[in-house]
């Protein structure tokens, strides 16, 4: 059958370039491998030339593929399944890129773009020495292209193509008609949960981080292959720094996203998907430190190999966890089962990197040079190594817990996460924070090889004093209130706070006293100070986070469950219902739900909540702000709730809608009851009475703005309910420019009362319509938190990022101007993203 209106050309091109890129990456793998292993120098250069050509070819193909996918999505060519699944006409242009990496295939494409760019950067200079690194890079490209290949071998499909046609993929009677495209009005569009600018930024940064992790892996492989065991560390170090900075900010962007636009009530939940990207980062940081030790002293080379290999291995393992659907029920945001063939390919992808690298490492282990003499316990390298080990064990602990569904699959068990998942991680993370706080505080005051005791103690005096003082101030003036897990745990939190505050001061003083304020050399100290500040912020914000919509805070006692162990309520009642126009107590605030309004996106509804804080004695409003959390309802009835936050320097007030009435209104059957009133008259309704105060012509007030020559009359009414509450109401009648009568009714939601200016009479009296509705009362149910110290978390993170990037620029031996030119935009961007953009 001939189909009408299809655009098949971009798909044919796309398919061709995918296959070309697949073949080219395979050629690149073989050529680079031969270039790195061949004995003959002439042959080496020939293979290298071929490898380079092949790599450039596949890189170009990938860029073209990306452009083609962008084209089919932006042109809404729904004959392609990918466009149908991820694009839609109402989608704002800024989300066009986001909808490309919403799906599995698109996110592999994004990853391979970064890989291609990094590969091109690597082969620019001394490509021959980097041939093994490029082999690894090409192999990764080969697998990514395999994932999006979409060709059949027998009945099995290898990879899911970005260009497969809707009519070939899904069945439906519609495809029997040649003009089927006419009836596919729109695509499914981007999931509402993902419509956020973080979805545009976060995945590219995260995948760049993943792609960067490959480079130290490639260099480690290169060292093992060429048997020049120590040469790789120096060139690999800047890449490790870049990976640390990029992957770290990528992960925390996810946290910021969760915090500001998802209703998780926090920035980190130890979700398996979060853990899966956190673990490679931890190991990369461990590897970074052992590489520094090796460069300074010659120790820890074996550990550097091990960590560099493991970091990327865990990137792949996390890909396996999140993309094969194995996490299934344990994670909020894992991909679903993608089909057996894809799962096998992802498994192969993981195995063909991890197994050869680890086998090679074990075989060559004895040959990797190691210094026989042991590090002194008063040397810097010794404690840095301990720090790396702590990071590594932390990573192992996290991944061991996260892999629970994998054990269940293998051993057929039915183990599940414990009751308080976050606590089961946090108690370990807290111990780690204490150890790392102390290590990052003290270690830099030790010198490489050995340190005299008097030097160490003298330099440490001031930071120690400051840290003790600051912690004491914290205890006295801003005590931590985390009693849920007993006094012992609270004590541990204080210890963690002290250790990290100590680390912060020790690093600041180190820059000042030892480095004499030379910031260019201070990358490590800045990064450590930022890290410490971030952990302090995390401890404060998690300990003193308060759910102010909770019934406990507001003194309402609901018959909840009392846990026999902790003697605490199992499920505190954390939601509060706000009836429209009725002020409700919420912690220190009085909150009123005033109105709702539609957003400019279809299906989006904002709820306007007025927060007032009154002074206890004078009843004066001391603080007042408006929050507008929203609910996004899609045509497929998918709903998402986006919080709104009032940010102060020291705390955030964070609220989201936990329940809202759906848009469908039931037919209102009640009628207006018309009464005739003169100013000063009153009239009863079932729950009170109304008074007509006056009738105003062309009113100008907070609601209406009329010009003197308009024709509008407003009734100024006070509603007095049985419980003697007073509510103002201002129904209006107006004759517009077309001589049509317009009625603007007013509603007193608290009384379910509708008032209408129904007309005038010959005398001074007017006619007022009174309706008591049997419609459900308008209300929303909200959950509200106070997060203190959250800005410390973001500020610490930004400082840490700047520190790592500074170290990176320092390693690249840029001059001062170049350093500043690179650093300032990055610093500004990080600062804007994490602290200003809300």
């Amino acid at each position, binding site marked *: 059958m001939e189909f009408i209106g299809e655009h098949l050309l971009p798909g044919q091109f796309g398919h061709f370039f995918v296959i070309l890129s697949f073949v080219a990456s395979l050629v690149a793998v073989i050529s680079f491998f031969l270039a790195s292993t061949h004995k003959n120098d002439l042959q080496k250069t020939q293979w290298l030339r071929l490898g380079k050509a092949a790599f450039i070819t596949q890189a170009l193909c990938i860029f073209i593929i990306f452009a083609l996918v962008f084209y089919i999505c932006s042109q809404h060519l729904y004959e392609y399944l990918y466009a149908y699944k991820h694009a839609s006409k109402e989608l704002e242009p800024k989300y066009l890129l986001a909808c490309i990496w919403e799906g599995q295939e698109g996110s592999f494409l994004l990853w391979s773009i970064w890989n291609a760019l990094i590969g091109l950067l690597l082969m620019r200079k001394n490509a021959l020495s980097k041939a093994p690194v490029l082999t690894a890079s090409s192999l990764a490209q080969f697998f990514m292209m395999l994932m999006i290949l979409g060709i059949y071998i027998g009945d099995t499909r290898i990879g899911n193509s970005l260009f497969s046609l809707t009519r070939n993929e899904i069945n439906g009677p519609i495809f029997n008609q040649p003009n089927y495209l006419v009836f596919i*009005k*729109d695509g499914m569009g981007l999931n509402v*949960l993902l419509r956020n600018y973080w979805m545009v930024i976060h995945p590219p940064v995260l995948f760049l981080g993943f792609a960067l992790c490959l480079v130290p892996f490639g260099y480690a492989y290169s060292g093992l292959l060429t048997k020049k065991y120590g040469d790789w560390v120096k060139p690999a170090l800047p890449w490790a720094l870049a990976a640390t900075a990029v992957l770290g900010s990528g992960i925390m962007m996810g946290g910021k996203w969760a915090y500001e636009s998802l209703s998780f009530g926090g920035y980190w939940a130890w979700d398996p998907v979060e853990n899966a990207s956190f673990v490679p980062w931890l190991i990369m940081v461990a590897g970074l430190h052992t590489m520094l030790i090796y460069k300074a002293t010659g120790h820890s080379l074996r550990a550097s190999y091990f960590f560099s290999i493991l970091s990327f291995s865990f990137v792949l393992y996390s890909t396996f966890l999140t993309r094969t659907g194995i996490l299934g029920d344990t994670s909020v945001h894992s991909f679903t089962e993608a089909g057996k063939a894809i799962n096998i390919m992802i498994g192969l992808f993981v195995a063909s990197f991890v197994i050869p690298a680890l086998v090679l490492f074990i075989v060559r282990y004895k040959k990797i040079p190691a210094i026989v003499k*042991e590090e002194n316990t008063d040397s810097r390298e010794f404690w840095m190594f*301990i720090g790396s*080990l702590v990071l590594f064990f932390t990573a192992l602990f996290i991944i061991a*817990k996260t892999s629970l569904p994998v054990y269940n699959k293998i051993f057929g068990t039915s183990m599940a996460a414990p009751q308080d998942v976050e606590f089961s991680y946090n108690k370990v993370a807290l111990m780690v924070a204490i150890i790392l706080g102390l290590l990052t505080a003290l270690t830099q005051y030790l010198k490489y090889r050995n340190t005299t005791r008097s030097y160490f103690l003298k330099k440490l005096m001031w930071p120690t004093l400051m840290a003790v003082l600051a912690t004491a101030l914290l205890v006295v003036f801003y005590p931590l209130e985390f009693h849920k897990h007993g006094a012992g745990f609270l004590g541990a939190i204080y210890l963690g706070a002290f250790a990290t505050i100590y680390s912060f001061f020790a690093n600041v003083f180190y820059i000042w006293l030892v480095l004499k304020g030379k910031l260019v050399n201070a990358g490590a100290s800045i990064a450590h100070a930022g890290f410490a500040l971030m952990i302090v912020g995390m401890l404060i914000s998690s300990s003193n986070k308060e759910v102010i919509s909770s019934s406990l805070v507001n003194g309402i006692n609901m018959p909840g469950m009392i846990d026999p162990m902790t003697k605490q309520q199992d499920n505190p009642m954390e939601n509060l219902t706000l009836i429209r126009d009725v002020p409700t107590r919420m912690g220190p605030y009085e909150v009123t739900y005033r109105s709702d309004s539609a957003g400019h996106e279809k299906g989006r509804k904002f709820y306007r909540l007025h927060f007032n804080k009154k002074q206890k004695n004078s009843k004066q409003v001391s603080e007042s702000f408006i929050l507008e959390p929203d609910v996004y309802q899609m045509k497929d009835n998918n709903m998402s709730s986006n919080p709104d936050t009032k940010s102060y320097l020291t705390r955030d007030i964070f609220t989201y809608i936990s329940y809202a009435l759906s848009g469908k209104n039931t037919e209102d059957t009640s009628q207006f009851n018309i009464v005739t009133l003169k100013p000063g008259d009153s009239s009863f309704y079932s729950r009170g009475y109304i008074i007509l105060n006056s009738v105003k012509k062309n009113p100008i007030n907070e609601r209406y703005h009329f010009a003197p020559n308009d024709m509008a009359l407003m009734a100024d009414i006070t509603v007095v309910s049985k419980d003697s509450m007073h509510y103002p109401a201002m129904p209006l009648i107006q004759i517009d420019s077309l001589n049509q009568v317009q009625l603007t009714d007013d509603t007193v939601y608290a009384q379910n009362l509708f008032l209408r200016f129904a007309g005038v009479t010959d005398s001074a009296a007017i006619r007022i319509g009174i309706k008591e509705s049997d419609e459900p009362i308008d209300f929303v149910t909200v959950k509200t938190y106070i997060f203190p110290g959250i800005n410390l978390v973001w500020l610490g993170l930004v400082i840490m990022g700047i520190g790592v990037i500074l170290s990176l620029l320092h390693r690249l031996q840029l001059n001062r101007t170049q350093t500043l030119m690179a650093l300032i935009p990055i610093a500004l961007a990080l600062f804007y993203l994490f602290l200003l953009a809300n």
Partner: protein
Amino acid sequence: MKKSHIIILVGIAVLIAGLLAYSADFSTYDSIASAKHKEGKFVHIIAKLDHNYPLEYDPLKDPNYLSFYAIDSLGGSTKVIYRNSKPTDIEKSERLVMKGKMQKDHFECSEILLKCPSKYKDDKKQLEKNMQEQTSAAAQH
């Protein structure tokens, strides 16, 4: 690897192992029937909403009280009480993963994860259904 290294290494390993053991408070996945034998113990149950009974949620009366009936694939059935706001689209969910403790007459649920069909575009059946709904007008011609 020298003495002090090994000592520290062993120290850390013991610490981590200790913490692991201390935190190894795993729970289990259970059927409704087996959960009923473990009254008061924290379990995970995979079940679905029983549409034969009404779902009870009145946020005006109490926004923190939701009750409904759930049945699992083995035919077990229980009343569920979830003292929180009603998860969006629970009525449309295909599957519920519920965490909580079985009590005498109900399952006291502390957390619900939903699997909603519409969220998963990679599900082919869902795609077909979606396409059919969208184009049903045309198919009738």
